[in-house]
């Protein structure tokens, strides 16, 4: 199946490991990704705090390129982009006033025909679980993982229309299909605070520390994530958190696509595992993967 691919600003820079591993996992599952022509930033939290129309226009620009190039489905791996895209599509479909204004600002008239998906949505579609199971060469046996879904993958349900809002299961089912052991915990959809990471780091450190603590309390070897912003926060701020709260965590924050790649038999380097700041070595030794 062919998809337009919107990597978003993070995957080109601080989350190149997510980009690498996502592409590897998609290749293995015959999901073809074609990068959206001349895409621009989705506007993230800054556009919707500045102008409502701008927050719709920025995603529409990239979506309209995908539509004009004949794509019906688009994959956005970052939750900030994903959420802004879904909101933009919804408003373009349902609000005639917004639609009219956006059309006035653009030369191309976007018809909102491009459906937006997170990789987890595509990889849990019907038949995909069997495909994933059949590609596994090295099971993640013995690896205890907590799946962290982040804030807006399932919220608000009216917009996200995916998974169980307060207790999502999609990533857990993928980890299970890879032979790993997903653990139950109550921080699956708690916010990590990333929208203030540059400005109010004190809040970010507290929220991220709560997540790390909860993961350790249930005995997880690793936290699996599906968003470059959550990853950056929990991984690169982990040293600061340990310093501030005087606890040692050392919990690696691994993209679920990296876990898939490992189980499918790819080399750690092909998946950017050496780019993780908290080393995943100990965790992966548990299941003999490193």
């Amino acid at each position, binding site marked *: 199946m062919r998809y337009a691919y919107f990597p978003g600003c993070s995957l080109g820079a601080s989350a190149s490991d997510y980009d690498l591993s996502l592409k590897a996992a998609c290749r293995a599952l015959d999901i073809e990704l074609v990068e959206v022509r001349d895409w*621009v930033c989705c506007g993230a939290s800054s556009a919707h705090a500045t102008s409502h129309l701008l927050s719709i226009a920025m995603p529409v620009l990239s979506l309209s390129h995908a539509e004009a190039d004949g794509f019906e489905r688009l994959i956005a791996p970052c939750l900030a982009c994903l959420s802004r895209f879904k909101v933009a599509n919804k408003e373009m479909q349902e609000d005639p006033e917004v639609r009219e204004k956006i059309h006035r600002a653009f030369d191309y008239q976007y018809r909102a025909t491009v459906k937006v998906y997170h990789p987890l949505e595509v990889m849990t579609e019907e038949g995909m679980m069997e495909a994933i199971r059949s590609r596994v060469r090295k099971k993640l046996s013995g690896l205890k993982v907590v799946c962290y879904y982040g804030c807006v993958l399932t919220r608000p349900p009216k917009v996200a229309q995916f998974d169980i809002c307060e207790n999502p299961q999609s990533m857990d089912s993928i980890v299970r299909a890879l032979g790993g052991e997903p653990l139950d915990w109550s921080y699956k959809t708690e916010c990590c605070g990333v929208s203030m990471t540059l400005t109010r780091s004190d809040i970010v450190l507290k929220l991220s520390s709560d997540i790390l603590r909860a993961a350790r309390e249930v005995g997880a070897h690793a936290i699996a994530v599906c968003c470059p912003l959550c990853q950056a926060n929990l991984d690169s701020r982990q040293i600061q958190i340990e310093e501030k709260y005087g606890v040692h965590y050392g919990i690696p924050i691994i993209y679920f696509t990296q876990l898939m790649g490992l189980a499918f038999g790819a080399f750690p380097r092909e998946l950017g595992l050496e780019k993780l700041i908290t080393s995943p070595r100990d965790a992966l030794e548990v299941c003999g993967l490193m």
Partner: protein
Amino acid sequence: MRVELTEDGSRLAKRLQRITGENVMLCYQCKKCSLGCPSAYAMKLKPHELMRALQLGLEDQVLWSGTMWICLSCETCNTRCPQDINILKLIDGLRIYYLDRDYYNPVRELPMMHRLFLKLVRRFGRIYELGLVLILNLKMVNPFKDTDMALPMFVRGKLKLLPHRSEGARELRMVMSRLEAMEEEK
């Protein structure tokens, strides 16, 4: 505190309804928003208190609380509100309305960040992470903030020194100018 309810007092609520389509009067103070809010602990007015202040038209309290800038936009309150009030949309309405207005803001760094973010995106079409961090740190008079975090990221090739320019930037600038012209018309 004693509050006189006047016609004038509902102006704020009405203005917000015009901008966002959301009605603050629907709130009956069940506090689900505040209980689920991850940054409520850092707010002077918690989300349900913000809603009350909006109902009563207490504009100064709303502004001085900084609540609208401490909100992380995580959408938990919207998801759980039994009255289906889109609280984030209301907060965005406040942010947009007061962005260029003069008032005492206890969390000035947030609107500063949003402005800088959009300025960089307007120029390059994409976000220039390193540039955003460096300029923002200078503006916050905290130039060495997070340098302990930057080094390990740099070593692993996670920090790009130069911005990436998108070919779509020109189109984005055109769209932004047209939107600005439309918003000035009003």
